[in-house]
């Protein structure tokens, strides 16, 4: 206190000097000393390099270690082709299902009041909090030979476990929060007024959905689909339990990577892995682009 008083009473010549000091002090409050800054940044970069960049580089280095021909030969193997095809089919099914489910659930949660709403929101998050292996086991319990529906399914000759339906179901279960999670906050923020306006202007329910609701959430939908797809293609645990690992039939790409690796076929394993890594990179770029669009969508409302 006394310091400040002395400062303000000092002659005008030293005034500017005092002001410069004060400015420096203010700067110091906001930024750490140079050495600390450098140390922190170095640490962060080092950590990222060792744990994120290096593994990514290793994947590609291993995949191309016998040259580019060996790489493409590994991918052209019938087993690899089958795994890629299966992964794409499963991803398409589960993304499709979750898109519909996510839209319906977030619509219900954001636009209506009903008892049990909080419970539903919690339930949507369940697949995130449960280990994927358990998610897989649930389907074994339901549809396996000893499961609840096992005998009925056998009588009607329907194959769910160790086949595409089982893998798709497990993947859908594991990925089902993504679209809903992306949309619920967005739709809650947007409220129901635009829909009310549309209806009072004479729009039908479908017209309101396709002309007002959907355009407002399209970037959110894409964002959810993108993350959902990335997870669906990369899912290992749940799929591993229900797939049965039938070569060329029920192996998805992540499962095949493990099998090939265990058989010491490093080039083949890393070739498939490199595809998954590329998927991750593309997802990352697309995510950045979408996030920019999402931010634009949040127009600041003046109240």
């Amino acid at each position, binding site marked *: 206190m006394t310091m400040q008083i002395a400062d303000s009473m000092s002659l005008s010549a030293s005034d500017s000097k005092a002001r410069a000091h004060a400015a420096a002090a203010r700067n110091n409050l906001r930024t750490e000393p140079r050495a600390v800054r450098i140390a922190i940044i170095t640490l962060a970069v080092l950590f990222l390099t060792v744990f994120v960049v290096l593994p990514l580089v290793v994947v590609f280095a291993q995949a191309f270690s016998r040259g580019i021909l060996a790489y493409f030969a590994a991918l052209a193997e019938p087993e690899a082709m089958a795994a890629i095809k299966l992964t794409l089919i499963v991803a398409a099914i589960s993304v499709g299902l979750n898109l519909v489910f996510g839209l319906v659930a977030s619509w219900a949660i954001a636009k209506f009041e009903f008892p049990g709403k909080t419970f539903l929101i919690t339930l949507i998050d369940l697949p995130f909090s449960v280990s994927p292996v358990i998610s897989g086991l649930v389907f074994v319990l339901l549809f396996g030979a000893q499961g609840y529906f096992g005998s009925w399914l056998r009588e009607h000759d329907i194959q769910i476990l160790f086949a595409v339906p089982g893998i798709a179901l497990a993947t859908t279960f594991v990925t089902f929060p993504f679209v809903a999670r992306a949309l619920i906050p967005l739709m809650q923020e947007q409220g129901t*007024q635009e829909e009310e306006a549309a209806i*009072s202007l004479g729009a039908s329910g479908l017209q309101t959905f396709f002309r007002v609701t959907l355009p407002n959430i399209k970037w959110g939908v894409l964002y959810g689909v993108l993350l959902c797809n990335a997870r669906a293609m990369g899912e290992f645990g749940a799929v591993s339990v229900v797939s049965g690992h039938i070569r060329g039939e029920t192996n998805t790409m992540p499962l095949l990577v493990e099998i090939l690796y265990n058989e010491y076929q490093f080039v083949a394993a890393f070739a498939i892995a490199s595809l998954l890594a590329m998927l991750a990179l593309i997802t990352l770029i697309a995510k950045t682009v979408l996030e920019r669009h999402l931010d634009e969508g949040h127009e600041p409302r003046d109240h």
Partner: protein
Amino acid sequence: MTIEVKNLVKKFGSFAALDGVDLKVNDGELLALLGPSGSGKTTLLRIIAGLDWPDSGEVTFNGEDALAQGARERHVGFVFQHYALFRHMTVFENVAFGLRVQPRAVRKDEAAIRSRVKELLDLVQLDWLADRYPSQLSGGQRQRIALARALAIEPRILLLDEPFGALDAKVRKELRKWLRSLHHEIHVTSIFVTHDQEEALEVANRVVVMDKGRIEQIGSPDDVYDNPATAFVHGFIGESIVLPIQIGDGAIRLGDRQLDLAADGLAPGASRLFVRRHDMLVGPPGSGAFEGAVQHVRNFGPVQRAEVALSGGETIEIDAPRDKELRAGDTIGLNPRRYRIFAG
């Protein structure tokens, strides 16, 4: 289009938003629903629009049961407080929306839609904004576009929910005048909700004052100001001095002082006396019903506002003309030119 509302009740849980409301709106009138927040005015408006449904009661348009129709069929233009413009559409498309979603059989062709939208944008004087998006407009512009959009469907009724509530004071004043002249031009039966008494008194033909889900008074702006029907209306519209008084033995008492006011026909017991600040006339000591000591005086635009400690124990604020000589410490007499007494 006349609107008639009979015995409307709407509860949210145990809270009665509307508690038996009866109202008749005449053809071509501009009616204000005025009340504090939570008085049920917005709920009433939304029920008339078909955006909410009452628990019981009737709503009729020209004698037809409106509750049998959804919001879509009622042909009601609704203007929201926060505009609710479609954010991904241009101003032009916003206004055209109501025309584009019409059933194919009655839908206008593109050229007709274009000329109608142009006409509406001219009406709200914003034709130069046709290609902008709502986020690029100011609040006042957005609200005018929202109004143009609501008018596009040639509504039978126009409902405005706190239309100027989100705007700053200056824009609000301009839009008020504009709304009144617009209504003069198009003469559609209109109801607007507001909590701003000045807005209601300035714009509307008739004012409906609501509180706690009930209608307190319906009347012309002059009526509700000069002849408030209830204590609530007196306190809510215009600023009032409220004095707790006792009535008994043919006399009115403030604290221990007997007031020189007629007590004829008043029920004995505790009551409240309401006076407008400018209706308290200042005179020499001993000249009026009240007497008090001036605490301090401030100039307030065209008037001076004095804080006066009344003998009897209350301190009030009065407005006196600027040429009246008032100084802190003066003892003055006060006579209410006009006052009302409400029991309770």
